[in-house]
C-alpha cells in the first residue's frame, strides 16, 4: 500500500521534474534565438550577407513566441506535481520546539488532526481549482500570445492537485491508524526521539 502511494508520488515528481527541465531548455532556446536574431539584424551581418540573414530570420530564428506563457502554465503543473512527494515524506516546514516537550500520545494526536486537516485543505484546493477551470472554460478565455485556452493549463494543474489530494487522504489515513494502533507506519524524522 505504502509502496504504491510512494510510487505514485515519485512518478509525479519525475513528471514535474521533466516538465521543469523542458521549461529550462525552452527558455534557453528562446534566449539563444533572441540573441541570434539580434546578431542577424545587426549592421555587420546585414552588410556581410543580407540574403542569408533574411533567410535565417524568415525560417524563424528568434525568440520562442509566447515562451513565458508556456513557462507559467508548465511550472504551475510542475509544482502541483511536486506536492504529493512532499506530502508523503512529511517534507513541509514546521516548528518542533514546543511540540517536542509534549508527550508521545499528544504528539500522535496532533499529527493525526494536522494530517486530516491537511487532506481536507488539499481537497478544497482541488475542488476550487476545478471550479476555476470550469469558469475559465465557460468564458472561453485564451492566453494573450499563443491563444491557447487558459482552462487547459488549469486542467493540467488540476491533475496534479487531484493526485495531491489523494496522497493527502492516504497520509491522513496513515496518521489515523498510527494514532489508533500506537505504531508509527511512516517515519519522517520528526518522531526520532520517541
Amino acid at each position, binding site marked *: 500500500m505504502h509502496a504504491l502511494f510512494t510510487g505514485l508520488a515519485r512518478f509525479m515528481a519525475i513528471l514535474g521534474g521533466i516538465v521543469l527541465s523542458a*521549461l529550462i531548455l525552452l527558455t534557453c532556446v528562446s534566449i539563444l534565438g533572441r540573441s541570434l536574431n539580434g546578431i542577424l539584424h545587426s549592421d555587420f551581418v546585414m552588410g556581410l550577407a543580407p540574403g542569408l540573414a533574411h533567410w535565417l530570420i524568415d525560417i524563424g530564428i528568434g525568440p520562442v513566441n509566447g515562451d513565458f506563457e508556456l513557462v507559467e502554465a508548465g511550472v504551475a503543473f510542475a509544482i502541483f506535481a511536486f506536492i504529493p*512527494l*512532499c506530502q508523503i515524506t512529511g*517534507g513541509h*516546514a514546521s516548528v518542533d520546539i*514546543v*511540540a517536542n516537550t509534549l508527550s508521545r500520545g499528544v504528539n500522535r494526536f496532533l499529527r493525526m488532526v*494536522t494530517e486530516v486537516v491537511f487532506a481536507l485543505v488539499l481537497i478544497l484546493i482541488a475542488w476550487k*481549482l476545478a471550479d476555476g477551470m470550469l469558469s475559465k472554460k465557460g468564458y472561453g478565455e485564451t492566453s494573450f500570445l499563443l491563444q491557447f485556452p487558459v482552462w487547459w493549463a488549469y486542467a493540467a494543474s488540476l491533475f496534479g492537485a487531484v493526485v495531491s489530494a489523494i496522497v493527502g487522504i492516504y497520509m491522513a489515513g496513515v496518521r489515523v491508524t498510527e494514532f489508533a494502533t500506537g505504531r508509527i507506519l511512516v517515519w519522517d524524522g520528526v518522531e526520532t526521539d520517541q
Partner: protein
Amino acid sequence: MSALEVGITSFPALMILIFLRVPIGLAMFLVALVGMFIVTDGTTVAFGRLKSETYTTFSSYSLTIVPMFLLMGHFATLGGMSNALFKAAEGWLGHRKGGVAMASIGACAGFGAICGSSLATAATMGRVALPELKQYGYAGGFSTATLAAGGTLGILIPPSVVLVIYAILTEQNIAKLFLAAFIPGLLAALGYVIAISIYVRLYPEAAGTRPRVPYGERLAALVQVWPVLLVFGLVVGGIYLGWFTPTEGAAVGAAGTGLIALVNGGLTRATLVDSFFVTARSTAMIFFIVLGAGFYNGFLALTQVPQELADYVVSQGFSPWLVLTLILIFYLLFGCLMDSLSMILLTIPIFYPVISAMDFGMVNLADLQADAAMEVIRNGVPEGMASDMLAQIKTAIASGAELTRDQMKALDIRMTRGMANRIETEQVAIWFGILVLIVVEVGLITPPVGMNLFIINAMDRKTRMVDTYKAVMFFVGSDLVRVVILVAFPSITLFLLR
C-alpha cells in the same frame, strides 16, 4: 468583532497552530480561511478567491526562479565543482593557522555564487571539506561550526532564493537586490575568516597544520574553478546587464550547471531522478508556504492591519532607527525557532509597510539637485543663463540649500521631492532586504533549531552537538558585528547601486 480585531486576533491563533507543529504554510492558510469566513460573513469570498489563487500563485513567472535555482544547486553539486573550489581555496589558504577552515569558508563562498540555497551549500561543502578538516587535525565542533556558518554564504551571496521572495513581496528589482547583496556577502566571508583566526588563537589545539602548496599547483587548482566563474558571471551579470530576466537567468544557470555535470559525468539517470526528488520536496514545501502566506496576507489586507500598524508606528513618532533595530532583534529571536523563508513570507508584508513609511534620511533632495546641477554645469553653462543666476545656484549648492524652481528651470533639470522620495523608498527597501536576509540567516546557525547545524552535525557522528554550538558562537558574533556595521553605514550595501 470588527475586521481589525479579527486581523489582530489572527496573530496569536497563528502562533499557537505553528507551535503545535502544524506545517507553517498550512497554519497560515487555515487562519486566513477562517478569518475570511468571519470578516466577510460567509464562504463566498474566500472560496471565490481560491478558484484562481492557487493557480496564479504557482504559475507566477518570477517565482519560477525558485525551482530553477534549486535544480541549479543540485546540478552544481553533481558537477564536482565543490571539490574544485575546495582544492583551489585550500591551496592558497591551507598552510595558514586555521587555514583549512578558512579554505572551507572560501569554497562555500564560491559555491554560494552558483547556489541559491543555504542548506544545499552546507550539505555539499560538508561532504567535501569535513574529511579534509579531520585529516589535518581540526577539532570536531570547530569543523562542523565552520561549515554550518559557511553554508549561510549560499544565501548571502547572490543568487539567493530568499532575496527572490523578498523582491517579489516588496515589488523590488531582483537584479538590484542581487547586486546589493554582493559586498555584504563578501564581508560575511571575510568576517568568518576573521572569526576563525580569532578562534585558533584562543584554542590553538583546535587546528592542525598543513604544508605549503607550491605556486604552480595553486594556479593549476585555481584554473579548475573556471566553470563556477562562468556560470556566476553569466547568471548574475546577465541579469544585471539586462540580457535576460531573472527567470531566464535562473534557466541559464540551471542549464549551465547541468551541462557541466553532464560533461563531468556526474549527471546520470539515477542522479537526475534524485535531483528531481530533492527539488520536488523543497519546491513543494516553499510554494505551500508561499500559497499560505499569500492567502494570509490577502486576509490581513482585508482587515487593514498592515496599514493601521504602519500608521500607528509613524504617528507615535518613534525613531526609525529604533523601529529598525527592534524589527531586526525580532528576526534574530524568531530565527532561532522558524526557518528563514516562512519568517520572511509571514512578516515582510507586515513590517515592510512600517519601514517604508519611515524617513531614514538616506536621500537628501538638495544633494540630488546639486549632483544634477553640477553635471549640467560641468558640461558647459547653458546658453543665455544670466551670470547672477549662475552665482545664485553656486551659492545654493555650496550652502547645501535646495534649488528654487526658477534655478532648476534655468539649468533644465527636474528633481522634485516626489522623485527624491521614490529613490529613498527604493534604497531603504533594498538595504532593509539585505539586513533582513542576514538576520534570518543567523537563525540557521543559532541553537536550538539551526538547520545548518543539524545537517552538518548529522554528517559527523563523533562530534557532540554541544561542541558545535560552542564553536558556532564565534561565527554568530561575526554576523552580529556585520549587522551593526551594515545598519550604521547603509552606503556599504548601496554604493554599488549609486
